[in-house]
């Protein structure tokens, strides 16, 4: 009887009736929450009972040897790969396992791929225009006109990523580093709550790396940023918290100093790259 009363109550909003794009609920702290996630491909367990929590506004670096499951983890969060079991929550309201890629993207999870993929035939400005948070259904896209506000927002992001001078040039003629920044800019246009960045400095020059570090640390705080990176020097220069993945699960977590002195970590991963560590 009570149940019926409750169901009939006029001011009750059922979760499934709430607008799809309801704000992400981070009152309980974490913005991203993975629990007991496992996935295997042809018997190979790429992710093995992975537990991971990212707080709102955090900048987190994830390191691990090749095959540790870093990219697979990104695939699971963005909906590209479905885990065999486990749960993945965005805030405390959105179960990412029930959503497809565009839905997850429109919730505010942006992903930067390892290889920069921009739309090379379009100009830098147009790349950012397409990435802008907007109604992305067919008809609104067909009839869309760029408002002054949107134009300002694009110019703002152009300034942030340092490509204002290349505004009207096709993205195809940009250098490798510039394409990486453009792609980060495209993610920013979506005003994401969570940025997933896969190996941002691979193939960059020293100067470009510094610029990228500035860019990423500047972004944290306004949004949560998860960086997967191999380059230890770069990780040390930006990281506050580091998570080490090994064989699909978390091996260690903590500050760079804590992690790099952990004997388990040294054994499986850093040991092989200890020279690299000394340099950093």
């Amino acid at each position, binding site marked *: 009887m009570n149940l019926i009363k409750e169901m009939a109550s006029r001011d009750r909003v059922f979760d499934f009736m709430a607008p799809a794009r309801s704000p992400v609920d981070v009152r309980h702290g974490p913005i991203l929450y993975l629990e007991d996630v496992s996935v295997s491909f042809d018997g190979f367990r790429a992710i093995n009972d992975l537990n991971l929590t990212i707080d709102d506004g955090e900048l987190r670096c994830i390191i691990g040897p090749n095959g540790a499951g870093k990219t697979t983890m990104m695939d699971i969060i963005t909906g590209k790969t479905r885990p065999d079991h486990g749960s993945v929550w965005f805030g405390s309201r959105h179960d990412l396992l029930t959503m497809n890629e565009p839905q997850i993207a429109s919730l505010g999870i942006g992903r930067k791929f390892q290889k920069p993929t921009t739309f090379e035939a379009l100009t830098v400005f147009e790349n950012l*225009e397409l990435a802008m948070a907007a109604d992305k259904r067919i008809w609104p896209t067909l009839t869309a006109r760029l408002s002054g506000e949107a134009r300002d927002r694009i110019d703002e992001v152009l300034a942030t990523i340092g490509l204002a001078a290349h505004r009207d040039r096709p993205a195809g003629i940009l250098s490798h580093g510039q394409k990486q920044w453009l792609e980060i800019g495209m993610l920013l246009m979506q005003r994401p709550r969570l940025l997933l960045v896969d190996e941002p400095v691979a193939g960059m020059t020293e100067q470009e790396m510094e610029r990228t570090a500035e860019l990423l640390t500047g972004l944290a705080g306004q949004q949560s940023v998860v960086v997967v990176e191999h380059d230890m020097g770069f990780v040390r220069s930006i990281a506050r918290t580091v998570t080490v993945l090994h064989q699909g699960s978390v091996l260690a977590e903590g500050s760079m100093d804590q992690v790099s002195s952990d004997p388990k970590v040294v054994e499986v991963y850093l040991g092989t790259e200890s020279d690299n560590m000394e340099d950093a």
Partner: protein
Amino acid sequence: MLASRSWLSRPFRERSTQIFLGVLLAALAAVTLLNLIVPAGHPLHVSTYTVTLLGKYLSFALLAVALDLVWGYLGILSLGHGAFFALGGYAMGMYLMRQIGDRGVYGDPVLPDFMVFLDWDSLPWYWHGFDMAWFAFLMVLLAPGLLALVFGFLAFRSRVTGVYLSIITQALTFALMLAFFRNEMGFGGNNGLTDFKELLGFDLRSDATRLGLFLASGLALALGYVLCRAIVASKLGRVSVACRDAEARTRFLGYRVERVQLFVFVVSAMLAGVAGALYVPQVGIINPGEFSPIFSIEVVLWVALGGRGTLYGAVIGALVVNYAKTVFTGVMPEAWLFALGGLFVVVTVLLPKGVAGLLASLRRRRDDGASETPAQGASS
């Protein structure tokens, strides 16, 4: 409404579209004047035969524009666009058949001749309604549109792209050809639909009707071009290019790639249907030959030759190749296929961006001034 008017009016503010429309309308006016005013026998006179031929080219040009929309801007190489063209043509043909009435050879007031010949005693259900022009013209859009909708929905949902998609479009048109060849289908079998008398009450053999059809084809090409330009110049057009170049990336930006593909594909199929509907009354016949895979591949050749991804290049390609075809098949019919093949080889090797690419590079060179050496323009 205001917003939708603005996306449709955008092409009229573009210089390239203004030039295209100017040239097209001037050509239409010139042909009309040379046909009507200049007396027959004068060297400048354009005969009604030529007018109809040009009208046929214009309907092919519209088909090429429709194909360029999906191939040039969306990256979907359809090798089956002839199917949509033929379906539009059959819808028009069915209307023209019903217009014959009791003037057919067998004099049956309702049944077309081929049905009387097959001893059918009543009209199949899908022939009903085609005696009304509005219904038939609606079907010219809906029949290809629905086929594209169902086919595209299935193909794009399962993310079939690239070569595989090209192959199944080819299979689609081939399957339809085989089906339409069958007498039991009720579309006249391998003879198709022919022996048309009149369209909307106008005698199809009269010179005035033929000129009218030519002008209608030109107008349809102009409108189709503007519509495609409006789509291409909109944000949706840029999203299409994004789907073409980096499909996964576009999906991550939150666009429903398969819906963009479906929308553009259906619009393109409808334009192809209109082209087919204009083609049929001018050539006086529609048969399953239009479904043949070779025809669809030829359309791709027109677009490649004119320059993919420019729209006006598709028009140039369709006109040039079809004019060459008419000349060659008249002078030495056995050489035509070699000429077509040769033309294609020359274009792929020397003009990878087609005639339109050549024009663009000439214009660039003019803008850059005469400082550059002119010899390597074509390949740049």
